[in-house]
Structure formats: structure tokens, C-alpha cells
């Protein structure tokens, strides 16, 4: 399987989840 296709915004993720019968995984990270 290829790399994870992280979506760029919450709206984009909600829309993608709705059309694919998926749920949104939201991952908040700190780069430091």
C-alpha cells in the first residue's frame, strides 16, 4: 500500500469520509 493520503482540511476530510462511507481520523501533532 502507498503512503497515507492525508487530507488538507477538516472540510475536505469530512467530505471524503461521507462519499466513501468512512469516518474521519483527525491526528493533531506537534512537530517539535
Amino acid at each position: 500500500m502507498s503512503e497515507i493520503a492525508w487530507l488538507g482540511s477538516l472540510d475536505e476530510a469530512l467530505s471524503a469520509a461521507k462519499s466513501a462511507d468512512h469516518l474521519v481520523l483527525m491526528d493533531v501533532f506537534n512537530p517539535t
Partner: protein
Amino acid sequence: MTYPEISVRDAIGRLTAPYQLDNTVESNQPVLDRYRHVWTPDLRILDTDGTELYRWNGYLPPAEFAPQLIAAVAHARLRRKEYGKAQALYEEVLRRFPTSLIAAEAEYYVGVCAYRASHNSSDLLKAWHELEKSHPASEWTVKQNF
């Protein structure tokens, strides 16, 4: 790192629309405020209207992250009253990751899913009896005593 591992990538791709955000970026602040973010790693499962259905904090190695994610999606499906889908995912956790930290929680909710679908208390008690045998020291075994 957890994400390069194939079982993690597979679970994310198969079950979710993944959205990642940096909590140091100012433009992300409205989303962070909306979800009352306080600590990373901060992982949420959201319904398609943005409602939070499950969350956890803290690093997990791949062998724990994959079953945690599957169980999280299972719980979200359960809260959406999709009992069959939820039970299948919890059973996947028990089949593929029987020694994972989340396994006892999965076993607890297998019974809940089965009972919600059938309204037959023997389905609940059967699963919880198995939980008592497989995870006698788990908090989920304590929680199933009533």
C-alpha cells in the same frame, strides 16, 4: 514512527479519511479550539458532520496503534447504531491482535454490539463471560460486573 508500518497504513486507508494538523500553525487554531485540543498526540474519530465519536491521547507503537484505530472506528460505528459493522471490527481486533492493550475493551463491546442487535441478553453475557476468562485483571472485566 508508527505510520510507516503496513498494518497501520492499511487500517487508516481502509477505514478512514485521514486529516492531520500541526498544533503550532496559527491557521489551525479554529479547529483546535473547536475540539478543545490540549495535548499531542491527539487522535479523534469524527462522524461525517464533525461530531467526535472516539478519542485517545498518547503515542502507541504500531502493534498497538493498528488495533486501537480499528477499535476506535468500531466504537464510532456502534455509536452510529451500525451494530453489525461495529461487531465485525471489534472481532477483527480480537482475531488479529488478541494480546493488544485494547483487546479487553474490544471483547467488552462485542457483547454490547451483539446485544444491541439482537436484544437477547444471552449474547451480552456470553461475550462478557469470555472477557472474564481472557482478561480477568482488566478494568473492562470490572466494568462488566453489575
